[in-house]
C-alpha cells in the first residue's frame, strides 16, 4: 500500500481543492459538500484499484467529476427541453421579426480588467444562476467542465447536437446581456 493514499489525510490535503472544484460547477454549497463526501467514500472503496499511476489529487477529481455528471443526469431537468427551446427561439426578444438586433450591444471598455475584480466574478456567478436551470447546467458542463458536444448530448439526453448548440447560443446570449446590464453598463 502506497503511504500517500492514507485516507485519514485526504480531507486535510484535498478537501478544499475538491470543494472548490464542485462549487464552481454546482453553485450550491451543501450539494458540493455532499458530493465531496461521496467522493471520499467512493475513493475509499476503490482504493485498491488506485495504482498510483496518476497523482492522488487527479484520481480524486476524476471520481468527483463522475459524481457531478451523475448528479446532472439524475436531476432530470434536462429531459424534454428540446421543444421548449425551439419555441423560445422563435420568440427571442433580442431580435425583431427581420432578425435585426432589438436590444443594443454596448461597447465594453477594457473587459479584460473586469477579470481582476472579485465583484465581477460574483456578478458572473449570479448571471449564470439567473439562467433557466437546464441552460445553466448545460453552460457549466460545456464551459467549466469542458465537455464535448457529443458527450454532453449523451449525458443530458438531448436529441441532436444541433439542439444543444441552439441552447448554448441562448445561454451565452443571456449571460452576455446580464453582464452588460449588471457590470459593463453600471460601472
Amino acid at each position, binding site marked *: 500500500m502506497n503511504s500517500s493514499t492514507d485516507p485519514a489525510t485526504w480531507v486535510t490535503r484535498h478537501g478544499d481543492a475538491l470543494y472548490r472544484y464542485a462549487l464552481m460547477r454546482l453553485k450550491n454549497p451543501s450539494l458540493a459538500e455532499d458530493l465531496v463526501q461521496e467522493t471520499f467514500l467512493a475513493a*475509499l472503496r476503490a482504493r485498491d484499484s488506485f495504482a498510483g499511476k496518476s497523482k492522488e489529487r487527479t484520481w480524486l477529481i476524476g471520481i468527483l467529476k463522475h459524481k457531478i455528471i451523475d448528479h446532472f443526469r439524475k436531476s432530470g431537468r434536462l429531459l424534454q427541453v428540446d421543444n421548449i427551446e425551439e419555441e423560445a427561439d422563435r420568440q427571442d426578444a433580442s431580435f425583431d421579426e427581420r*432578425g435585426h438586433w432589438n436590444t443594443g450591444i454596448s461597447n465594453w471598455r477594457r*473587459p479584460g480588467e473586469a477579470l481582476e475584480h*472579485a465583484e465581477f466574478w460574483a456578478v458572473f456567478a449570479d448571471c449564470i444562476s439567473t439562467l433557466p436551470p437546464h441552460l445553466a447546467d448545460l453552460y457549466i458542463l460545456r464551459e467549466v467542465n469542458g465537455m464535448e458536444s457529443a458527450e454532453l448530448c449523451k449525458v443530458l439526453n438531448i436529441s441532436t447536437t444541433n439542439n444543444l448548440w441552439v441552447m448554448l*447560443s441562448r445561454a451565452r446570449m443571456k449571460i452576455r446581456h446580464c453582464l452588460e446590464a449588471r457590470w459593463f453598463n453600471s460601472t
Partner: protein
Amino acid sequence: MLSCKEVSKLISLSQDRPLSPWERVSVRLHLFVCKLCRRYRNQLIFLTRAVRHLRNPPHGLAYKLPDTARTRMERALAEAASRRSTENLNG
C-alpha cells in the same frame, strides 16, 4: 446576406464546432458591415475566456471547505475505514 440573428448563432456555434467555409465567409461578410455583431463576437470571445477561469478558482475566490463539513467527512471516512477492516478480518 445573413441576419444578425443567424450570425449571432453562428458566432456561438464557432465555439462548439468548426464553421464550414461557406459559413465563415458569410459571417465575415456580415461582420464587415455590422458594428453590433462585431461587438457581439468580441464579447462572446471574452465571455468564453472568462468562464474558463472558473475551471480553476479565480482571483479573490478562495473557497474553503467549511469546518463542520470537514469534521463530518473525517468522521465518515474513519467509520467507513474501520467497517472495512472489520469486514476484512471477519471475511
